[in-house]
């Protein structure tokens, strides 16, 4: 994109954001409900929670850092399980038939629905990890399988004619060729995992975390902080997504599609 174009689109974006905030403020004034704060109250809440902390004294940044830590832990675990399994399942159709009757229905069980079982079977940080894992696992797994299956047969044949064994083919052909899909699986997985944070922190116990902040202030009927929590989650999610996206762009320069 040209320089001028980019400036123009930034300006347009800023403009539409301002219009949006203005309309929201208008709605808030018009509804005049104690439960629908406008953007101004949310901004005030932002400064209050950022400096003085919430009702238990935790600041916004400590809520955010805790949530990020939990999500990254669960995400890490999801990557460590889903990628090897995905490569295995992509390479061996029989592994696929064995695992899909168990994995497939589990895929559609939402993370919140796992909360009761998570409480019974797990404790401490492992619960958060589990619930984030449940969310992040499947996008990574499915993308890895798809990436492995899309490996060009010619490249595999090529390696075979040099006498490559299956280990070499897996690590030098299949894995690098699936890597773009794996990465986009990781990106989607991190996004989904991040969005599970409210579900994961719904159990309660520890008083800190962005999901907890939302639930706590919903219980206290203070919607300004609830919306603050939502916006914070949205923006951090965006940043995490962007971080992986730009890694992808840097890593896969060789992939012509990514540049288009």
């Amino acid at each position, binding site marked *: 994109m040209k320089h001028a174009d980019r400036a123009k689109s930034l300006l347009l974006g800023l403009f539409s954001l301002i219009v949006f905030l203005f309309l929201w403020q208008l709605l808030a004034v018009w509804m005049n*409900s*104690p*439960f629908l704060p406008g953007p101004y109250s949310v901004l005030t809440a932002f400064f209050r929670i950022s400096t003085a902390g919430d*009702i*238990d004294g935790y600041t916004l940044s400590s809520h955010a850092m805790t949530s990020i830590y939990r999500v990254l832990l669960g995400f890490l675990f999801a990557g460590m399980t889903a990628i090897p399994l995905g490569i295995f399942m992509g390479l061996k159709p029989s592994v696929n038939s064995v695992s899909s009757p168990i994995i497939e229905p589990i895929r559609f069980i939402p993370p919140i629905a796992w909360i*009761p079982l998570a*409480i*019974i079977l797990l*404790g*401490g940080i492992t619960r958060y990890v589990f619930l984030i894992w449940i969310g992040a696992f499947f996008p990574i797994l499915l993308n890895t399988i798809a990436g492995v299956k899309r490996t060009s047969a010619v490249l595999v044949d090529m390696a075979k004619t040099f006498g490559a064994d299956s280990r070499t083919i897996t690590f030098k052909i299949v894995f690098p060729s699936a890597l773009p899909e794996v990465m986009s699986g990781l990106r989607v997985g991190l996004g989904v995992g991040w969005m599970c944070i409210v579900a994961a922190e*719904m*159990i*309660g*116990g*520890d*008083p800190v975390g962005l999901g*907890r902040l939302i*639930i*706590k202030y*919903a*219980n*206290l*009927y*203070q919607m300004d902080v609830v919306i603050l929590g939502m916006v914070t989650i949205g923006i951090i999610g965006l940043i995490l997504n962007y971080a992986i996206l730009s890694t992808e762009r840097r890593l896969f320069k060789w992939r012509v599609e990514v540049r288009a």
Partner: protein
Amino acid sequence: SGFLFPQQTATVRVGHLTGDLHHLALFVARNQGYFEQSGIKIELKEYANGPLLMQDFLAGELDFAYVGAPPAISARAKGMSDPNAHLPVVIASVNLEGSAIVVDGSIESPEDLSGKIIGTPGTGTIQDILLSMYIRDHNLTLTKSPMSISYLPIEFSKGTINGFIGWEPAPSIAVVQSGAHVLLTSKDLFENHQCCVLVVSNKFLASHQDLVSKFAAAHKLANNYIINNPAYAKQLAMNITGHSSQLIDLALSHIVYTSTPDPVSMKTFLHAMIDLNVVTTLTHEQVDDFINAFIDTRFI
């Protein structure tokens, strides 16, 4: 004496519900330093509702909990067959009463409840049981709309429900912010009924009787302090909930703070819970034994 014989400090995990005024004693005890003075360091764990808290309690994640009597009863009834479960044992009352039915202008007397939509904070809560008992006793037919306590005042403000039964401060919020009026309070529904209780894990009790005793003492001290220093209690309530003075006044007027448990009302509740199928593992004949084992009166 603490100065001369420094005590070993033990850390205990205490569960409670976010913004629940019934649990004021917990905060008084903490702010007044009663726990520290007994050599107890507390780690607070907060939950959105009683059943979530009790699930965590059963899993052994908590030592003490401030919680409504019915979730504790249900959890104990269900967990009794599990040797690994951490069963709740009541060592003190937290408060009596503390709930109210608030309604809009279309309802002037209890008879007007018929045909209306009334919100409750969920199947199996004290409030749900109180309402069920009341409509059974007065032959009323109304539509119950169960939802999270956090949403009751909001739904009321929008006119989706004609009124609701909830624990404080939810009813007072509807009164102060949305022009509701109080139709019936706990006192009218079931005078002096047990509401929240202080429970300890049976496993913790077995191994740390001394700590349990100290904790109960601190709790009792705090409840007494609330009764004797209403102004202090009110200020603290305002701090932990962020609500206005007027609202807190109204809310506190519906709560009776006492540390002595009331087994009779708990038995009544349990019978009702069995009737409602909320408790399926007990029969009416087992109720007396169950409640007697549930309450340990040694510490109050």
